[in-house]
């Protein structure tokens, strides 16, 4: 298993090379020279490491040979051995040092490539993923590639080259004893199939499953703890976690138990005492039967142990390599996410009329969230979207900033399909305020200017004023220069007003807004109301409405239900029509909450 898996693991980065985004393999290409240096230095160092052992061999031959001893030769041999050690030290240290430096660079370039890719993937793709998991790919997964880059090339090559060199040398000394010396390696390899029997495989699968269960139950336990405790059911999730833990312990021990005899056999076969025992028995037989000169036993005693290195190397660090391989897989997945296609020849829209024509959309095939929406946003009008949760309101508003492209039909701006607009152009024309506000650890001014990097302070202040947050900003220790998270902690409502200021500063012709944003506090509510009022007639606004007043003040009201437009028209028309909207309106007039 090990060898093929390793081969696969090493080849893992190649298939991606054919694809358009920078693949892992292509990212590694600039470092090929450094990798070569790492391997060459490591091989020289490792082979030089044989020198002291060979010196002992030569020493033995000279001292054991009958007749006078050539002192000069003996000291020369000793010197050569010591020199070999020094070479080994210098070269392996250099190799490891370069390997780690390359590793750092590889990690940086992988992270940059990931960041670049994530800066181009469709926003919808991002919105449906957990940022924590993606951050883990950029952080932990790239770090997990470490053994792959820093250790595998040098150490694996050395683990195979040194035994190979030793083997060739030993064959020249005595082929029979060489074969005997290989017995432990053969024994160990012969035991491998026993680790792969169906029973062992099943235990391995059970082990993986139990491991997955424990990870899940721990996440669930921790994340849901507030609910669980509040409802006095702490025992249940707690028990579930402990059951998973006990289960894991049992499966783990059974797995180890099942493997233990075979594993012990393998370890024994590869252990130095056993290898020495085999070599000595073989050597003694060959010496007593007269086939082997006694000094020729020495190289086998010293080099023979090294022959087990490849097998040991495969076992050792195998888990790390497996983990690295999985991490590389995840990195590749992210790098392979296609970006929203940019038009080859971007069209320029005429006017700012927004039109949705027979738009259908499904997050998963077979489950349509939007089922044929036709909608026109006339320039300078406010359109209010209403409807029960799950009716598709959020999906509709997310189509405008192109979080997703519709699966059928089209969204046009100024007569141009959004897909034919360059993304810069699109975001210059469409700005949006949704509920999940993000403030960066940067100055308040920079946070507002994020959507319009070239805006001057005057513009920023004007936007902040309109968003009802200017005075609050002036109260901060360093005003617009206060760094969020360091100088200033803003409340949820204040953060949302900053995000509103951002959208206002962007000065886009089309504003998409989720009114739920407003309910953080009355100031924010007022800011949103003011904004809607101020922009009326100036910009095209699409708002998910939550307040009766917003609906009443809108030019058009669109009631969505189950992914289709149930009713549409001006508020007055809808009231007159006596449909769902009218019924809802009446019920509200009679009494607000309670």
């Amino acid at each position, binding site marked *: 298993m090990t060898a093929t898996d390793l081969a696969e693991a090493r080849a893992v980065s190649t298939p991606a090379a054919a694809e358009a985004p920078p693949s892992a393999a292509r990212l590694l290409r600039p470092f090929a020279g450094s990798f070569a240096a790492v391997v060459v230095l490591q091989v020289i160092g490792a082979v030089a490491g044989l020198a002291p052992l060979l010196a002992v061999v030569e020493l033995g031959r000279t001292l054991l040979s009958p007749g006078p001893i050539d002192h000069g030769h003996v000291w020369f041999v000793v010197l050569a051995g010591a020199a070999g050690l020094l070479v080994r030290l210098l070269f392996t240290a250099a190799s490891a040092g370069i390997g780690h430096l390359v590793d750092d660079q590889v990690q940086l370039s992988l992270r940059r490539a990931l960041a670049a890719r994530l*800066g181009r993937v469709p926003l919808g793709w991002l919105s449906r993923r957990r*940022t924590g998991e993606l951050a883990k790919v950029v952080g932990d997964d790239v770090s997990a590639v470490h053994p792959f880059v820093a250790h595998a090339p040098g150490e694996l090559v050395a683990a195979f080259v040194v035994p190979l060199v030793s083997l060739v040398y030993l064959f020249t000394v005595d082929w029979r004893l060489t074969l005997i010396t290989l017995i432990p390696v053969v024994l160990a390899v012969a035991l491998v199939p026993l680790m792969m029997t169906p029973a062992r495989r099943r235990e391995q699968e059970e082990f993986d499953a139990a491991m997955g269960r424990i990870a899940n139950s721990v996440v669930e336990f921790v994340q849901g703890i507030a609910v669980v405790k509040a409802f006095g059911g702490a025992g249940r999730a707690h028990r579930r976690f402990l059951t998973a833990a006990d289960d894991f312990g049992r499966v783990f021990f059974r797995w180890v138990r099942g493997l233990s005899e075979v594993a012990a056999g393998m370890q024994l076969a590869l252990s130095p005492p056993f290898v020495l025992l085999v070599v000595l028995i073989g050597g003694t037989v060959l010496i007593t039967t007269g086939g082997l000169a006694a000094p020729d036993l020495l190289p086998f005693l010293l080099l023979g142990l090294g022959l087990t290195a490849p097998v040991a190397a495969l076992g050792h660090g195998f888990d790390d390599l497996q983990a690295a391989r999985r991490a590389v897989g995840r990195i590749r997945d992210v790098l392979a996410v296609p970006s929203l296609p940019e038009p080859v020849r971007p069209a320029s829209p005429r006017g700012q009329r927004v039109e949705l024509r027979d738009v259908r959309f499904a997050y998963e095939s077979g489950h349509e969230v939007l089922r044929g929406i036709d909608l026109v946003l006339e320039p300078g009008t406010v359109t209010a979207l209403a409807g*029960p949760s799950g009716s598709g309101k959020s999906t509709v508003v997310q189509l405008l900033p192109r979080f997703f492209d519709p699966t059928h039909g089209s969204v046009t701006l100024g007569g141009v399909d959004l897909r034919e607009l360059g993304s810069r152009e699109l975001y210059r024309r469409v700005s949006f305020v949704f509920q999940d506000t993000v403030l960066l650890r940067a100055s308040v001014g920079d946070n507002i200017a994020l959507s319009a990097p070239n805006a001057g302070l005057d513009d920023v202040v004007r936007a902040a004023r309109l968003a009802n947050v200017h005075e609050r900003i002036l109260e901060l220790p360093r005003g617009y220069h206060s760094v969020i998270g360091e100088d200033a902690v803003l409340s949820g409502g204040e953060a949302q007003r900053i995000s509103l200021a951002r959208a206002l500063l962007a000065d886009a012709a089309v504003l998409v807004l989720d009114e739920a944003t407003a*309910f953080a506090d009355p100031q924010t509510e007022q800011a949103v109301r003011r904004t809607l009022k101020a922009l009326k007639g100036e910009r095209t606004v699409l708002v998910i409405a939550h307040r009766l007043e917003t609906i009443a003040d809108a030019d058009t009201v669109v009631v969505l239900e189950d992914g289709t437009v149930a009713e549409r028209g001006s508020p007055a028309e809808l009231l007159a029509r006596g449909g769902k909207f009218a019924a809802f309106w009446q019920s509200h007039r009679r009494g607000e909450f309670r």
Partner: protein
Amino acid sequence: MIRMLLRVLGPEYAKPVRRTVALMTITAIAEGLSYALLVPVLRALFGGDPGGAWPWLAAFGGAVAVFAVLRYLSDLSGFRVGTSLLLGMYHRLGDHLARLPIGWYSAARVGEVSVLASRGVLDAMGVAAHLLAPFVSACVTPLTIVAVLLALNWQLGLAALVAAPIVAAIQIWTGRSMAAHDAERHERDHEAAGRVIEYLQAQPVLRAGGRTHERFEMLDDSLREVQRASRRTLLSALPGTVGLTLAVQAMFTVVLVLGTHLALGGHIGVAEVLAILVLAARCADPLLSLSDIGGKLRGARSELARLDAVLRTEPLPEPRDPVEPEGHALEFDAVTFRHGDRVVLDGVSLSVPEGRRLAVVGPSGAGKSTLLRLLARFHDVDAGAVRVGGADVREIETGELMSRIAIVFQDVYLFDGTIEENVRLGRPGASVAEVRAAASAAGLDDVVERLPGGWAANVGEGGALLSGGERQRVSIARALLKDAPIVLLDEVTSALDPVNEAAVHAGIERLLAGRTVVLVAHRLRTVRNADRIVFLEGGRVVEEGGHDELLRRGGRYAEFWRLATTPG
């Protein structure tokens, strides 16, 4: 490390761990001693009497067999102890996490603890199963061999022995210096992770501003910092690794030179010298693996330290003589609560008579939600007292307190299960009919209808397959099913959509009827009918009274009301 492990887990694990370490030590000594038999074997073979080697070889074979058995036993014992330590840690952590106050679980904590409890525990506990045996063997076997060398030839033995304190000193020094660098690296990684998350979350805005990652310097800076920290770690590790190798190789070289000198002078037999050199080579390999093992041990150790920190967090103390609350009146008596350096509540006094409704209004960040959290004892107050039914919540047994309170949170967590299971959490013993009734009352029927699979539909991890409003309804249904005399409602406005809110409001209305209620309101319209309204600002009650009374007073509440109702 072991000491830390035992302190974390408790003394009942000390005995098996000690037994295992002893077994591993004996195994390593057996390995070292078995090599001693090489000397007579080689003496016979090189001394021109190859036949004389057989008895010694047989003895060596026996020693190897003993070593094999010991090793098997000690491996097995290592795994057994490792498993029991692992389970012990899971139980210890599980019990402890269940006892920690809910207030401890911030969003960032939840993420950290999830990783720590799954990956971290395995890494830390892998020590006994995977690292201990190689470590003991790498330390003890060479020492045993040195002892054998001393017995054979004191000069050569002494030369080898000199290396021992040097190797030990290098190990300790490297461990110390690396720990500091590892910590710095961890810090940088953490910082970069924060920037990456920020970058991802801010994508829409960044794109609108035309900022790709090349132009988003904050992220690139922190990525480069990670690289620099990693390079510094490497540079600080290099002297240790090189030093260790140098020390071991110098030892071998000295033995080689000295042995050659002694042999040439005829002070020692050639066979002995060759045997000693074979032994010295056996000594060097395990020592060289020490730096590798040391690195892994450090990694495990830092995980263990993090586990230790969590396990040392004190849970809220349980009362020794619990008091039974009488009735369901609620009271805040000069309550002060701090979060870090920030004073969240500053001497708040309030009371809610049984069966009445109190609405809490104020700017966001005023401490409104904290009031609810203190009532449910997610945290303990820093000064003053919170009372339920006349009893200080600290004097009430946690289960007893929780059984009286139903909470509807702002963020609702659903377990990966069916809607029915999630609602049932409110009262696990409830009948199917009761669960259905509560769900209907909370307006869940529509949701159930919409989902493929209906009642048996899975809601996904964290309730991902439901919208915010739908999750909210599940939470209301839970509270309805629980049927507790006290209701704490952290109103979530964003989730309510105007067309459907009537249905949800009817559910909420039912939930509140006839109970003692504290309601945090974000939309002022919903507080009008409360018996009493308090306006909270900067952690203090600045106004208190009925709706009309407060409007007449023309203070902060009236201003809020005006802001909320008059067009901008």
